[in-house]
């Protein structure tokens, strides 16, 4: 009975009209990097279907303050193609694994002129309806301190010290109650009367 049901569902899915559904593309929101370093921009997508043979990724770059975007990387038909004429010549490399829905690129040797927005558009035919996702790249000379890092560090250290002191205090009390230790605070120890066992 179960086998019949499974077979029927497979057949129905197979002959159902190939309606396209939405695809969702994911990238980071913002990336910070140092001048001269490499940065890996990740792009992934969610689609209800399995990864098809015609999956494609397109990366576009739009400099800060400009309205036009230019393509810098494209993956289609199983082959990656990268920029070999423009500002990213020989600096872009396709490092993703499309079979695992990963269309990441690696940009080497960053410069201040690489500040801008990188847009990733992924298509998994027949799921082609989707919005491209953008990641903003910021290139710094020295990485600034992110908001909240020092705050969290101070709070964490102080609370950790507090927990440590409380644990040590209770450990000392436990040790004093266990062994016949004559410490000056032992008279303040609460608990049952101590007997010296033979």
């Amino acid at each position, binding site marked *: 009975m179960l086998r019949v049901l499974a077979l029927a569902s497979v057949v129905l899915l197979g002959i159902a009209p190939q309606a396209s559904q939405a695809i969702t593309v994911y990238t980071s929101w913002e990336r910070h990097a140092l001048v001269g370093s490499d940065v890996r921009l990740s792009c992934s997508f969610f689609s209800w279907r399995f990864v098809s043979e015609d999956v494609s990724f397109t990366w576009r770059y739009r400099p800060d303050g400009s309205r036009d975007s230019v393509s810098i990387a494209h993956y289609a038909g199983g082959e990656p193609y990268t920029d070999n004429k423009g500002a990213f010549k020989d600096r872009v490399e396709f490092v993703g694994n499309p079979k695992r829905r990963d269309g990441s690129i690696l940009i080497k040797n960053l410069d201040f002129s690489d500040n801008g927005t990188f847009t990733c558009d992924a298509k998994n035919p027949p799921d082609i309806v989707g919005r491209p996702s953008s990641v903003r790249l910021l290139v710094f000379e020295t990485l600034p*301190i*992110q*908001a*909240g890092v*020092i*705050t969290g560090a*101070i*709070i964490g250290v*102080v609370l950790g010290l507090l927990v440590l002191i409380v644990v040590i205090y209770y450990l000392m009390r436990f040790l004093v109650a266990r062994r016949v230790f004559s410490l000056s605070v032992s008279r303040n120890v609460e608990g049952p009367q101590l007997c010296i066992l033979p």
Partner: protein
Amino acid sequence: MLCILLGVLALHLLVFILLIVSTASSQWVADEKGHSDLWYSCLSEPKAYSCSQASNEDWIQAVQALMILAVVFCFVSLLAFAYQLFRLFKGGRFYFTSIFQILASVFVMCAAIIYTVMRPSNGKGFGYSYVLAWVAFPLSLISGLIYLILRKKD
């Protein structure tokens, strides 16, 4: 006995509320053009009101951390007071409560001093949150010292 207890508890709660209001409200530096605090700085021009995140510099993050730690320690001291009220033996002193409260006052003092020394120098006057922080420091110190000399009777 009950009056002293209620008075001490009221003082503790007052310090706790002052600390929370001072940490969260947005008026450390204020004038008619805008106000700023530990978390946001807002500008109110005619027909516009825009807020942006306060600076990411080290000192303001340290002030944030110290104020939050002061609030946390004051709350823990409140819990320790409730615990020790019922579990302390007769004649005992409220050591834990007092230690946490005094630590909270030290943290508020450090935060207020750092903010006073390092505040953005654009001539704006201090708002009420800053005043509350400076008021909370001696009140919490007094509260902690009261707990130190308080003894539990039955």
